[in-house]
């Protein structure tokens, strides 16, 4: 199908959606005891509509029954595949501060409703509309730095752009948080903010340059008892992944995203990066397992952990074994491409010098762990196998 034809077709789809959801015309069997207004809408309101609303990166709104019904089959697949909500950590969610998980019952309600005929229920039972999320969830930043305007041409579906932004600081500053505000929320799919090279080299034990990993719907987590260092006169690199949804496939879209800096008033411990990656290239074959690690040469507190952006369908387990033989799993997760975020530990984990950090990474049998109909978001095992721990020294 040609692009103009697809556009016409897509327009037709929108019209068809409006028709298809007329009351009384649904031909699917109603087997769900749960209705949208009574049971489903409150869950969507709590967990989903911050992103799944008009004018967001998600190409569908899930605010009302009419809007949600056409996406029920898609919801079913995405939920069973574990793609949504985009929280990759397995196990105890309370270990982390920026949690996005559904309760077991809530998940079952959504799936049962989506598979069971998508009944509407009494409109009087519908919860009030969710408030519009603020542009800056942490409040107005201390400094807002705008990137240059970028135009995504009509014939380009996705692109990655890097913008260098001068901070103009005359002395070293300490940041408790860095956030990104998309100029056009419908095309900014993910973004990172880093201190440009030349100010501090990042390496084992080096100062962390990656200040933010931004994904839609994520609320930045302010560092506690530690901060990112912003060297005097530093430049920031804002790297943005743009991707159009089918709704804007043929549009010319302009974006002018901004970076928000939140300073911490007092000088504090600088967050450092401990990177773990295998010596050899990833074998790539599904099911293959890679083990690698390193030993800490100083006492550290682990504050946060993040995967290499782009890593996909690879299950990673980071285990720490202290010199006294005690150990704990710091994180077990299965990152998804485009959903790389920094996982902040609720309680820092103290690891003495001599602690062995071991990473076990295995590429999944992705097809088996997703239901029929699920599309891979990226090639299985795509991306570099790399895990970074954000640490501060133990004083």
């Amino acid at each position, binding site marked *: 199908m040609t692009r103009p034809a697809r556009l016409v077709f897509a327009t037709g789809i929108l019209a068809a959606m409006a028709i298809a959801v007329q009351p009384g015309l649904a031909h699917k069997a109603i*087997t769900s005891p749960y209705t949208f207004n009574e049971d489903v809408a409150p869950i969507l309101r709590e967990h989903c509509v911050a992103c799944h609303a008009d004018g967001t990166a998600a190409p569908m709104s899930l605010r009302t029954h009419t809007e949600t019904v056409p996406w029920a089959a898609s919801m079913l697949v995405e939920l069973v595949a574990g793609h949504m909500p985009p929280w990759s950590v397995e196990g105890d969610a309370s270990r982390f501060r920026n949690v996005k998980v559904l309760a077991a019952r809530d998940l079952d309600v959504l799936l049962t409703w989506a598979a069971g005929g998508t009944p509407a229920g009494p409109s009087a039972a519908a919860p009030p509309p969710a408030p519009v999320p603020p542009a800056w969830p942490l409040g107005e930043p201390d400094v807002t730095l705008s990137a240059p305007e970028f135009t995504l041409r009509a014939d380009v579906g996705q692109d990655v752009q890097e913008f260098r932004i001068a901070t103009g600081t005359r002395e070293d500053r300490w940041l408790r948080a860095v956030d990104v505000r998309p100029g056009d929320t419908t095309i900014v799919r993910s973004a990172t903010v880093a201190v440009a090279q030349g100010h501090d080299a990042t390496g084992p034990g080096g100062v962390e340059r990656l200040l933010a990993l931004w994904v839609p719907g994520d609320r930045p987590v302010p560092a506690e008892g530690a901060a990112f260092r912003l060297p005097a006169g530093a430049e920031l690199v804002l790297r943005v992944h743009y991707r159009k949804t089918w709704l804007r496939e043929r549009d010319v879209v302009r974006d002018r995203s901004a970076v928000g800096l939140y300073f911490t008033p007092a000088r504090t411990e600088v967050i450092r990066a401990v990177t773990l990656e295998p010596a050899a290239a990833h074998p790539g074959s599904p099911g293959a397992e890679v083990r690698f690690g390193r030993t800490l040469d100083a006492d550290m507190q682990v504050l946060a952990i993040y995967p290499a952006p782009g890593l996909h369908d690879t299950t990673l387990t980071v285990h720490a074994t202290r010199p006294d033989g005690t150990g704990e799993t710091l994180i077990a997760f299965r990152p998804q491409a485009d959903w790389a975020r920094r996982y902040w530990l609720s309680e820092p984990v103290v690891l003495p010098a001599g602690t062995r950090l071991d990473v076990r990474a295995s590429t999944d*049998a992705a097809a088996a762990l997703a239901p029929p109909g699920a599309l891979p978001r990226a090639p299985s095992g795509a991306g570099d196998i790399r895990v970074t721990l954000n640490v501060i020294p133990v004083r």
Partner: protein
Amino acid sequence: MQPDLQPAGRGRRLRPRVATSGRAVPRPSRRPGGTLPARGPLVAFALAATALAVVALVTVRDTAPVAGQPPISMTCPHHPDVIETSPGTCPFCQMALVPVRLDRAWTCLVHPATIAEERGTCPICSRQLVPVTVSLTWRCPGSIEEHLEPGRCADGTAMTLARTVRPHGDHNPRHGGQFFMAADKWHHIEGAVPAEQAFRLYVYDDYSRPLPLEELERVRGRVVAEEDFDPETRTTTDLVAFPLAVGADGTYLEARLDAVVLPAELTAKIRFAPGLDEERFDFTFTKPSLDTSPEATAARAAASETVTPVPPAPAAPEAVVASAPGVETAEPPAVEVSAPPSPIARVSAGTALRPATPTVLTAPEPEAAPAPVPEPDPALLAEPIAETIPGMLDQLRARNAQIGDLLERGDLTAVWFPAFQAKDVAIALESRLEELDPSGREATSAALQRLVRLAWLIDAHGDTGNRRNVTAAYEAFSTTVDEVIADAGGFPP
């Protein structure tokens, strides 16, 4: 428009199986065992409600053929997979049949609002569109009244055509075999091992109507008796395979096997049309397939009235039978299977399938005295959720074992039942989390959520008959059950 959606001959029953007495044959449960209490009644009731609502809106002005449109069929408001060519009553509920104009369209598996006349890709996600059965109605702006033929509205404008996806048909075997659904949810297959050492594959559409011959001839596949799987590379090599070819009467694919020794595990690897991915369907046969279709039933009845010497089927390899001392072997077929000589390629492999505890396949004995009713399989019985937490954990443990047993038996279409029972226990357990020691509460909560997701995943994979996918989902499920039980150690007794 696809003429194959219409009945092949006027008055021919496409779906319901009707006994010679004219009474409807009770429909087997969608799920095996016949004891599953789950979806059947609820689905039927709900389906009836929605279908009635829809039918009430349809105005029939003329059921005569409309140029360029598929003909009118008659369907049951309660049982939409009953499709007839002439008015009558539903063989299941005796309701009067109502008219519907059926067509084939193309839709997206996950974006069903996409309905196209031709194959193509989804404008939303670029998936390949898959075929689906739709009903055609025409409407006027602002009206919910549906018409079965095009026409003009009161304001003189032409009515708008609407294609509405019909409910999916059931998954009941028609020929006593095992029934699976392809990934496109349009193709359905039934594998059967009748008595003459053949594997038959019936290929249906989404209403279990046999594919027309021209489409069946495009299906390529083989049945694999032995294969080697390399977990390192995750590649599979066929060791013993038999090609499938169109059977003599053009309604199924068939592979001739030299010997079928039960229980047998056979994998059909099928490409439904050129350009589509090959799909695998894992069958396990513990007994010969008793074809309950009206044609087979009539053929058996006719055969039983004719005293004709019946040549025995080729003997199974002696070594196989002799290798299992103490195992009862059946007599040679007492009833000739009505299949005429088949043009299929004969593959001489001489391979006995699964020699463990073999029973040589023979014709079933449909006329034999009724066997005692077997004990219901506890895996397929619902039970109330335990009131105590240890009781719930015991139930999780038991359901987990039952899924493993069903998987071991190759009963892939039944694994959903204990999985969903376990899922309900997990949700009940979640509501008791506050009783757990706080240190283990969150870990248990995460595991319970994962358990629910994996139960749904087991259900999804079970329908499509891929044992490896079900096994992978089950392994994750089983590990999670162990986590829940371990984490729940903090629950008070």
